[in-house]
């Protein structure tokens, strides 16, 4: 009777993952979906600890170590996830993803050591040929799991560093060729080690590990910051595949279904994100923003003059507008200005001004970033317009207020085929009567591209930190 408990728990785990993912993709059920998957995960983990037996029927040992690790991980994980600010969510996800990758990598390393060192007697009798006793499928599972896990780990850490500004974009000519070369070396070494099993197998294993880590770093390094969400999503599916290889290793169905589900769902999600930006995955990975931006910025600098607008004028303009559209971007998130933004919206509404928010699908650092942020400030759901709706209403809008957004309103995406963001759908703010841009300075946006919008006749610049500017604007409006 006890025998079926473990497989039953794993089956429950697999089912909750599927249902959880399904529920996560609908707004109404998303939160419960997350909970369902978490419960399934807990069941699978507890069942493994107490019910797992090896081929000889031995139970797991080292309970103190296992629970110690679980408790430490739970405490740190919960604290980190609870403390993190809404603006830093994306890098947090990337960091957690890296931890999963590292976990898969370590499992493979330990299993490799285990399989290459256990039969000591055999080893002595048969010499290096004992390596040949390891079944090919097992061997390849260990190595591929290790490779994918370490690429995901190294890549996620770089993505994390890039998102929080610790690591700058870095690329050199021919980097993609170097990357392809590294990938080739990893494949060749893996095939060589598995097929030939030379005496240097153990050493070569660690060489593959080192190159995989290097590849993870090089893979993410040249990709522009604006594309980071796509990369994180891709690395997310990598970790899923690494977890699935763990499932192969232990013949464990729940690891397999969980891993593969995330692997395939993550890949689709990555493609959906690319579509939202109207870019292909290949474009994101190979045609990185970095190089193109440098070329583009030279020409745009000659655009010439922009005009500034005072707080007072802004307040008057808004107070007598019939309709104001607010376009939030990452600048709003950085300044933590979502609450005062909601205040501005309320005060304008009291004055009879219609207010809406135009949300670009990739505004901020991640799709949906702005929705989450504004929801935190209790901005009503109906006020958040998706891009198409926002663009439809643009012509009837008197004032567009751009708060720390840049690339998502850059007309170059529509007009300049040489621009690296050409083809990305944008919020067509120029259809409105007036455009007010709040930025801290004239520095280009996250993608590193100059924005011609700032120099257009309809545009006025309102410099300053979004929170400070909005606070001042609210008090100005009270006096109007």
């Amino acid at each position, binding site marked *: 009777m006890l025998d079926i408990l473990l497989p039953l728990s794993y089956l429950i*785990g697999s089912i909750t*993952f*599927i249902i959880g*993912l*399904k529920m*996560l*993709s*609908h*707004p109404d059920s*998303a*939160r419960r979906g*997350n909970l369902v998957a978490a419960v399934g*995960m807990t069941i699978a*983990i507890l069942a493994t600890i107490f019910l797992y037996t*090896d081929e000889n029927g031995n139970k797991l040992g080292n309970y103190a*170590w*296992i629970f110690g*690790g*679980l408790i*430490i*991980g739970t405490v*740190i*994980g919960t604290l*980190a*996830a609870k403390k993190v600010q809404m603006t830093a*969510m994306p890098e*947090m996800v990337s960091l*957690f*993803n890296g*931890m*999963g990758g590292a*976990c898969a990598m*370590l*499992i493979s390393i*330990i299993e490799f050591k285990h399989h290459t060192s256990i039969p000591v007697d055999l080893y002595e009798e048969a010499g290096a040929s004992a390596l040949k006793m390891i079944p*090919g*499928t097992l061997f390849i599972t260990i190595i591929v799991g290790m490779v994918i896990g370490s690429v995901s780990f190294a890549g996620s850490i770089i993505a994390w560093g890039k998102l929080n500004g610790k690591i700058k974009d870095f690329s050199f000519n021919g980097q993609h060729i170097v990357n392809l070369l590294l990938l080739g070396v990893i494949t060749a070494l893996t095939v060589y080690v598995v097929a030939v099993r030379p005496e240097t197998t153990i050493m070569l294993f660690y060489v593959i590990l080192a190159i995989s880590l290097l590849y993870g770093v090089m893979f993410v390094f040249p990709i522009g910051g604006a594309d980071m969400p796509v990369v994180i999503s891709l690395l*997310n599916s990598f*970790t899923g595949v690494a*977890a699935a290889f*763990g499932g192969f*290793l*232990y*013949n*464990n*169905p*729940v*690891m397999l279904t*969980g891993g*593969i*589900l*995330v692997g*395939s769902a*993550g890949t689709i*999600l990555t493609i*959906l994100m690319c579509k939202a930006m109207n870019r292909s995955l290949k474009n994101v990975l190979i045609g990185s923003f970095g190089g193109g931006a440098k070329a583009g910025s030279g020409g745009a600098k000659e655009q010439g003059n922009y005009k500034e607008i005072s707080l007072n004028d802004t307040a008057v303009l808004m107070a007598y507008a019939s309709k104001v559209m607010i376009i939030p971007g990452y600048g709003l998130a950085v300044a933590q200005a979502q609450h005062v933004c909601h205040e501005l919206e309320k005060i304008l509404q009291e004055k009879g001004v219609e207010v809406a928010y135009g949300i670009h699908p990739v505004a901020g650092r991640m799709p*949906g*970033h702005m929705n989450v942020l504004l*929801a935190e400030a*209790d901005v009503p759901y109906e006020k958040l317009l998706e891009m198409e709706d926002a663009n439809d209403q643009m012509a009837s809008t008197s004032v567009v207020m751009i708060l720390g957004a840049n690339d998502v309103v850059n007309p170059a995406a529509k007009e300049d085929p040489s621009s690296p963001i050409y083809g990305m759908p944008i919020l067509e703010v120029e259809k409105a009567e007036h455009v007010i841009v709040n930025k801290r300075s004239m520095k280009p946006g996250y993608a590193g591209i100059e924005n011609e919008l700032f120099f257009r006749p309809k545009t006025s610049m309102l410099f300053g930190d979004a929170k400070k500017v909005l606070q001042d604007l609210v008090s100005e409006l009270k006096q109007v």
Partner: protein
Amino acid sequence: MEFITQLFADPATYRLLTIVILSIFLGIEVISRVPSVLHTPLMSGANAIHGVVIIGAIIVMGQAHSDDYLALTLGFLSVVLGTLNVVGGFVVTDRMLEMFDKKKKMKRG
């Protein structure tokens, strides 16, 4: 070639392969129509789910010999990292989605 034959000869491996193929299609089906607002929470939720790799870490840890300190240390580390992935992932996702919940309550009230 030997590798391919091995894959099909062993019924257990073959069964796993079947699960893999079906799971791939399931993963695609399950999330193919998701609004862009949910991209981030969905990615985060999926991130937590691949933390299932923790099970491998627990097995490794539980099977390590009690005098093999290297394996114990590495195993311990992988349990910690895996737990971080699972717990951190689910909690972060919940926090994101909590915002959506609040939004809905506002709508009703």
